[in-house]
């Protein structure tokens, strides 16, 4: 026996559901910050600087009860997609954390981000306290679309003092030193360099540094500008050949293509004594000191800049990495939201408490005149090193996967992976990237 349902009621109900769903989909118009209650909404990442953001919002809101800042936090990878979908649908937050470069530029091109240049120009003390090399990552056509909110993240070469002493070697100063060291370490049965090759982006750090050391920053400037044949520049080819040379020499620890960088296993190889060196962003320090506090406190961890390349055009002080994370302002923010957001970025970010909170976290902000404060931190030698590295760098190259469009960045990572695997030759790598760039 089938129970008879009141079909009219059902139809009405489903019609109601349908209307509601459609209404929800079709809610158009400007809703930046909408639906989250009071305050100007900011989206940020859970990793890294969340504690600093939290503290800063509490402090700000206490002092400015009529123009509050509300934070929402997200995990790294889902965040990228959520942000894109929300902003694309006109539901984005007023302030959002981003990495600058090509990713931010696509938002700028779509007219979703506000130009901050007039605000920065109006208060020179705000603009002048930030390292210009960092601000450049969020500057397009001379207009600034984001301001840094956390620490600089240059890529440095970490090494185990123990293992280097064991083979009687110094940290490498030049590329030839590095190759000689690889030979020495291998002879002693120590894996020279660990790398999270499964995540692909650690491969990129080698290419970025080598291209810069061989050809100088102009080489990538041409690539970023989309110049025809820029990927076949002799400097890029040379860098790719040097990578092949290092891989063929057994420079990277066994199985590096299956080590994921997200789980900290590459760093673990260093502090467990399985590998002698690792090229990693400044966040690697945090990963290592969390993974093995003893390794750091007992002074086994050493760090140095990327080796110089003899005869290369690039200055040995040049660095690559993530300049910093930025906050950008939604192009659809109301006048009031905009006012709150700008005054928060100006006075709430990088003020004294904020900077102290960052430093406590091991984050070194790209703010001028920090030396005395750095000396007061627990890990002063490390924070001072990073600070000077970023301050004195002739060029600070934003990671290419961030600097390029996401499309080209992705192709780059895959082709580079193939180069490291030996599936394609350096010549093929250059040719394939040139082809991908003209698409």
């Amino acid at each position, binding site marked *: 026996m089938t129970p008879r*349902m009141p*079909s009219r009621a*059902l*139809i009405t*109900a*489903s019609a109601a559901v*349908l209307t509601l*769903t459609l209404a929800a989909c079709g809610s158009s118009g400007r809703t930046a910050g909408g639906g989250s209650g009071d305050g100007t909404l900011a989206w940020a990442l859970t990793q890294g600087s969340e504690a600093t953001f939290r503290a800063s919002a509490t402090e700000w809101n206490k002092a400015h009860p009529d123009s509050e800042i509300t934070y929402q936090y997200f995990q790294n990878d889902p965040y990228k*997609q959520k942000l*894109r*979908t929300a*902003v*694309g649908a006109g539901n984005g937050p007023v302030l959002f954390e981003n990495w600058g470069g090509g990713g931010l530029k*696509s*938002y700028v*091109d*779509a*007219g*979703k981000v506000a130009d901050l240049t007039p605000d920065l120009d109006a208060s020179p003390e705000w603009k002048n306290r930030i390292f210009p090399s960092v601000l450049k990552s969020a500057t397009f056509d001379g207009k600034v679309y984001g301001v840094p909110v956390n620490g600089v993240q240059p890529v440095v070469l970490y090494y185990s003092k123990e293992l280097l002493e064991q083979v009687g070697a110094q940290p490498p100063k030049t590329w030839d030193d590095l190759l000689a060291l690889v030979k020495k370490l291998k002879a002693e049965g120590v894996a020279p360099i660990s790398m999270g*090759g*499964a*995540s*692909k982006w650690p491969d990129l750090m080698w290419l970025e540094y080598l291209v810069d050391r061989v050809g100088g920053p102009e080489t990538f400037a041409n690539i970023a500008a989309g110049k025809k044949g820029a990927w076949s520049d002799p400097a890029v080819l040379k860098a790719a050949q040097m990578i092949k040379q290092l891989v063929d020499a057994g420079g990277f*620890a*066994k*199985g*590096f*293509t*299956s*080590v*994921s960088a997200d*789980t900290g*296993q590459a760093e*673990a*190889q260093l502090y467990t004594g*399985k590998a002698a060196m690792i090229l990693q962003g400044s966040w690697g320090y945090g990963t290592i000191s969390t993974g093995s506090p003893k390794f750091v406190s007992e002074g086994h961890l050493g760090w140095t800049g990327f080796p110089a390349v003899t005869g290369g055009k690039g200055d040995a002080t040049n660095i690559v990495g993530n300049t910093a994370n930025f906050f950008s302002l939604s192009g659809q923010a109301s006048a009031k939201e905009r006012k709150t957001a700008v005054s928060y970025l100006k006075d709430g970010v990088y003020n004294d408490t904020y900077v102290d909170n960052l430093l406590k976290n091991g984050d070194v902000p790209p703010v001028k005149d920090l030396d005395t404060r750095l000396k007061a931190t627990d890990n002063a030698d490390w924070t001072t090193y990073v600070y000077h590295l970023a301050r004195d760098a002739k060029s600070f190259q934003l990671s290419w996967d961030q600097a390029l*469009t*996401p*499309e080209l960045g*992705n*192709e780059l990572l*895959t082709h580079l*992976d*193939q180069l490291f*695997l030996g*599936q394609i030759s350096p010549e093929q790598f250059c040719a394939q990237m040139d082809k991908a760039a003209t698409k």
Partner: protein
Amino acid sequence: MALPALLLFALFALVPMAIVVYLSFTRWDGLGSPAWAGTDNWRTALTSDVTRHALWLTAKMMVFSWVVQTPISLLLGVFVSGKQRYRALLAVFYFVPLLISTAAIAVIFKNLLDPNFGLGAALDLPILGQDWLGDPQLAFYAAVFVIAWQFVPFHTLLYQAGARQIPASLYEAASIDGAGRLKQFWHITLPQLRYTIVTSSTLMVVGSLTYFDLVFVLTGGGPGYATRILPLDMYITGFQSNQMGLASAISVVLVLAGLLLSLALLRFSGFNRMRSQQAGM
């Protein structure tokens, strides 16, 4: 009565699918508005080496999954449907993979297969210490293995249910006629399980088009292009490269492939003419 269901189906299945078809003819980065691109995406999708390779890998994955999983599930299913003493105990342990989420399985195996800290290094067994997920030759088969580990229990369950339906009288008659275990399996169990085989194979083959989560977490499609199967290619194109138009074209290819496969399986297996097992035994 069917109206509400049809409305919901239209709203949540047909309308999105129509939108995807529309998007496949546009250029869209997920931000601004989609711009008409004509057949550009389709030309790219059908001619690009990456997508063709992904299609090939998907087909290969399908065949290997079937070849690996079917015999194991069939034999295990028939075994656990019997009356052996420790069968129940085995069944309990055996079905554990069914309870674990795919992402967790992928993370577990990623760690087990790690060449430096994984099983091989821990037990000091060089044969286990291969660079399973980092070697382009091995990564694909490692993925096939992990997928089998995850799905064999489910198919075993199907075969167990199927084998339990076979009337005991058939086996009694056979043993009176002097047929051994092997003969009984060959002449009774297998033919009686034919519809279960079809069901299980259909699920396996069509399901292999959707192996996304496991491979994504396990290898992310790498090393190189070694495990970039079609669903992964679609995801990477759409959500990492932000080429929504091209990704839409790839996803339409995926839908069509699934549809064609199901239809072909129905036709060749005679599943749609399936007779009642009760009457015609």
